[in-house]
């Protein structure tokens, strides 16, 4: 645990003390604000019974952010260390591979969560001007953040995996973007195809990212979705761990 914290501190330092970190935060905030503007314009034109959080998610900016930010946050994790050679100093210290992977992933998740915090300001603005407590209750906001967190974990674990298998940050970012796009497309497919009783359709429904996120944004926490995201995240982290270990079998 002490190793994990030491590693985590250094990983967080690496991202928060670099200009890249703030560029990412700024970009995410910009996209969120755009999404907010679009939302407000729509709401001004015709009133809607939906909770604001649900509408927030409806603008699709959310997916753009996840698809773009996750590869950029995770690309340096392993690829940069391999390119600069520090991977060797790191792995010849008495640390376990599991600790390294866990610390790197945890730092990415923490950073990702931080990039989403400025959005609370947007929600507070809505609350302030509408004077409607119902527009923004803890349940829906909490549900939405849980959704953001879980979707983020999955995409970040994809990014970790991509970074572990490549030597250059660019390649890592591209691989994780492609993996993310593939997952996103499957989610699209799940929504587009009509649901049937066949097993293919059942399996596909687990990948219905939109439907699941929709529920989260309404404040509905569906355990199936939670299990899906967590298990998929652990699956990719497991693959990452195997890749890191694989240098010992080669």
């Amino acid at each position, binding site marked *: 645990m*002490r*190793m994990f914290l*030491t*590693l985590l*501190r*250094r990983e967080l*330092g*690496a991202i928060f*003390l*670099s200009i890249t970190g703030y560029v990412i935060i700024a970009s995410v905030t910009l996209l969120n604000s755009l999404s907010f503007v679009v939302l407000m314009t729509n709401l001004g034109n015709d009133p809607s019974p939906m909770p604001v959080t649900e509408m927030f998610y409806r603008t699709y900016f959310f997916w753009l952010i996840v698809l773009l930010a996750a590869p950029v946050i995770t690309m340096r994790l392993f690829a940069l260390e391999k390119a*600069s*050679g*520090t991977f*060797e*100093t*790191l*792995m*010849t*210290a*008495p*640390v*376990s591979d599991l600790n390294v992977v866990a610390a790197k992933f945890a730092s990415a998740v923490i950073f990702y969560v931080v990039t989403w915090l400025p959005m609370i300001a947007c929600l507070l603005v809505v609350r302030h001007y509408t004077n409607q407590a119902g527009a923004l209750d803890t349940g829906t906001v909490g549900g939405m953040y849980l959704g953001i967190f879980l979707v983020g974990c999955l995409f970040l674990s994809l990014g970790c995996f991509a970074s572990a298998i490549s030597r250059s940050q660019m390649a890592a970012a591209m691989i994780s973007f492609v993996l993310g796009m593939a997952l996103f497309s499957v989610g699209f497919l799940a929504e587009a195809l009509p649901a049937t009783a066949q097993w293919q359709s059942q399996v596909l429904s687990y990948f219905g990212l939109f439907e699941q996120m929709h529920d989260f944004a309404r404040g509905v926490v569906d355990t199936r979705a939670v299990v899906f995201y967590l298990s998929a995240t652990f699956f990719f982290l497991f693959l990452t761990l195997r890749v890191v270990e694989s*240098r*010992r*079998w*080669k």
Partner: protein
Amino acid sequence: MSEHAMIEVTDLTKRYTGRTAVAGISFSVAPGEIVGLLGPNGAGKSTTMRILSSFMPATSGTVRVAGYDVFHESEEVRRRIGFMPENNPLYPEMRVREYLKFRARLKGLGWRRSRQRVTTVMEQCGLTDVGRRIIGQLSKGYKQRVGLADALVHEPDLIILDEPTIGLDPNQIRSVRQLIKSLAEKHTVLISTHILPEAEMMCSRMLIMYEGKILAADTPENLQKLMLGSSQIVAELDAPADELRSAWAQMPGIEQFDVSAGEGEFQRCILTPRDGCDLRPAIFMLARERGWVLRELTRSRHSLEDIYVQVTRPNEEEEN
């Protein structure tokens, strides 16, 4: 022997796809030795060191460090070594003291202990003044010292340094060398280098590697002695060539001789002594007896440089 050896390598082989980097080498290093791994680029030095530091596995063979197997007891091994890889990779965005503290904690030192050790190694490596500087902005010499300090910080039994002086200016090289020499009292040190005088100066024993094999392993003095047997004597005398030839043929202790015309009246003789005996007094006596003028009398001493060149490039030598 196996209980006391710091490093014990048996039949170590490492194959990359289509290329054998290390081909069945065996050696052992006793505690307290400074051993130089010497060889041209691509000889397999870095690969050997990476396996020793348990960064990657061997294709076959066993390697034990301080009695622990580098593959099966990797963490025990890593706790006991300080490894500075080639090109000394560091995190450029961190400050010197911060980096060393991070490394100390990573190597399992407690909070208080790591503070003490970091202060000690920073003094030892002359880093006290730059503790708050960002590593990326340091000069190469300082960066190298940071790498060394990192290797030392947890007081490892074995220090492995891959090309520690590469890319430094002469003054920096000297200070790094002194630092390494001063480590010998407490630690076992394995250094790789392709610069021969460096190994000659620092190491108590040298392993000469070439194309994945160890070609010679001995102290610098013994390696030199090894070559002395085949040293040659050059004498330039003002005398008729055939008289010289018959004189050399009669002289005991000469294995081979070659007489050729030198500058002016002088004949240049290259003599190979038998069993490394010293022919010079006999040659002087001969010249005095016959009244020949002796202009030059030298023994060509093979330096380690020659040994190195000869051992590492056998084919080219033969062609020449």
